[in-house]
């Protein structure tokens, strides 16, 4: 005799909104509260290397956003089929392929930018943020959420490197995006006024200092304390 079964109306959960509160947090958290560069301290290498001028930094930021979002998407799609023991290598293979694709496309359509960025695009593979997000999020979450998370992390990284590049280029070469700002300011104050550029800012030491100051300002504002 089969036990009596009570029929329950099947309640379907309403599909989560495309930009629900939880999903918005995926994008907004990495911008300040959980910033990959200043809080998690990832991706420092390229934050120092490429930020001497704003233009290559901007292209780098776009390339990183593309690589992180696409790799998060691909790995998330594959997350149930990837064998656990080789997952890091699989992630690496996917990221390396994407980075090579970016390089080839740059070489074909934006050769001048390709020349300026030279090795830096290839070094995106070594950026800890990329692998970090894949391992921490994409391997265990659905594709759309992974894309949002990747986008948020890459945005958090991008605004930090653009800020560092802004100060490094301004203080180190007296220009912003190639526009000679120092010359303009000097011309406003007459012929005897010169603004000296700071050579330290052009080297990675300057980048470290600016990054430190940004971390300091950010943590003062958010009250984040490491435990």
């Amino acid at each position: 005799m089969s036990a009596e079964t009570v029929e329950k109306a099947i309640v379907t959960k309403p599909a989560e909104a495309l930009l629900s509160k939880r999903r918005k947090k995926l994008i907004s958290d990495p911008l300040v509260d959980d910033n990959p560069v200043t809080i998690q301290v990832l991706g420092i290498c390229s934050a120092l290397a490429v930020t001497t001028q704003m233009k290559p930094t901007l292209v780098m930021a776009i390339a990183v956003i593309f690589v992180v979002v696409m790799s998060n998407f691909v790995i998330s799609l594959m997350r149930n089929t990837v064998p656990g023991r080789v997952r890091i290598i699989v992630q690496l293979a996917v990221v390396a392929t994407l980075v090579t694709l970016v390089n080839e496309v740059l070489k074909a359509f934006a050769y001048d930018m390709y020349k300026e960025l030279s090795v830096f695009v290839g070094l995106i593979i070594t950026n800890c943020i990329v692998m970090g997000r894949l391992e921490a999020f994409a391997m265990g979450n659905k594709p759309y959420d992974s894309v949002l998370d990747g986008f948020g992390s890459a945005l958090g990284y991008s605004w930090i490197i653009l800020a560092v590049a802004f100060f490094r280029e301004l203080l180190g070469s007296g220009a912003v995006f190639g526009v000679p700002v120092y010359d303009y300011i000097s011309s406003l104050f007459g012929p005897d006024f010169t603004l000296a550029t700071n050579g330290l800012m052009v080297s990675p030491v300057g980048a470290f200092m600016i990054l430190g100051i940004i971390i300091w300002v950010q943590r003062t504002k958010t009250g984040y304390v490491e435990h």
Partner: protein
Amino acid sequence: MQQSNTYIITFSVILTVILGLLLSGTSQVLGPMQKEAIALDNKKQILGALISGDEIAAMSPKEVNAYYESRVSTVVVDINGKEVTEQDGVAVTAETVDVAKNYKKPKEERLFPVYIYHAEGNPDDVANYVLPLYGAGLWNAIWGYIALDTDMNTVGGITLAHAGETPGLGARITDSEVQSRYVGKTIYDESGKLVAVEMQKGEGIDYSNSPHKVDGMSGATITGKGVNNMLYNYLNYYQAYIESKKSSTAVAAL
């Protein structure tokens, strides 16, 4: 189950094949466009030693190609200044010579392209001779093109490029301000010796009275030395060709 060895191996093989196909496919599709981009970039660099960077930037790729076609003719010579038209049965033109690859060969075996800048449509009315350069900077390779006036002594212009110099320091060799320092300098001294042009250490000194010295780049001395060596070496390699052109213009002037 998922974790069995066969599964892992099969998965890895399939993934490798898919990624490999994707990469080689992209390479095939983008290959021709990349070659065009590189060839265009080369032409821009050669023209950069002759006309201003702003003029080049204002031209569309088609215009650059057309301008190059009508104003530049090429010849390839060996270390003795003799023209080379084929090597090992393969036809040789300036476009097929890879200066970077040739850099690795002993100088007797190298091919040296020369780009001759002449009046439009008239290859005999020569304005400048452009010689490619290649050498080592601080971190990686540097290269460029130097334009000589028809007296084969005065520098008409120079373009410099690099593979990985430090932005803001060695990378300044690509600045038009730094390259313009070479205009008007001479490569032969009074006694007829080929001394090339030397970039000095430090920056800010006026060398307008020194025909063989140019102001350096502060903080980028080693890159500057790399440029000096590159210039000296290549002008020496081309010396046979330069001398042959010198004597022919001297005869023509008589």
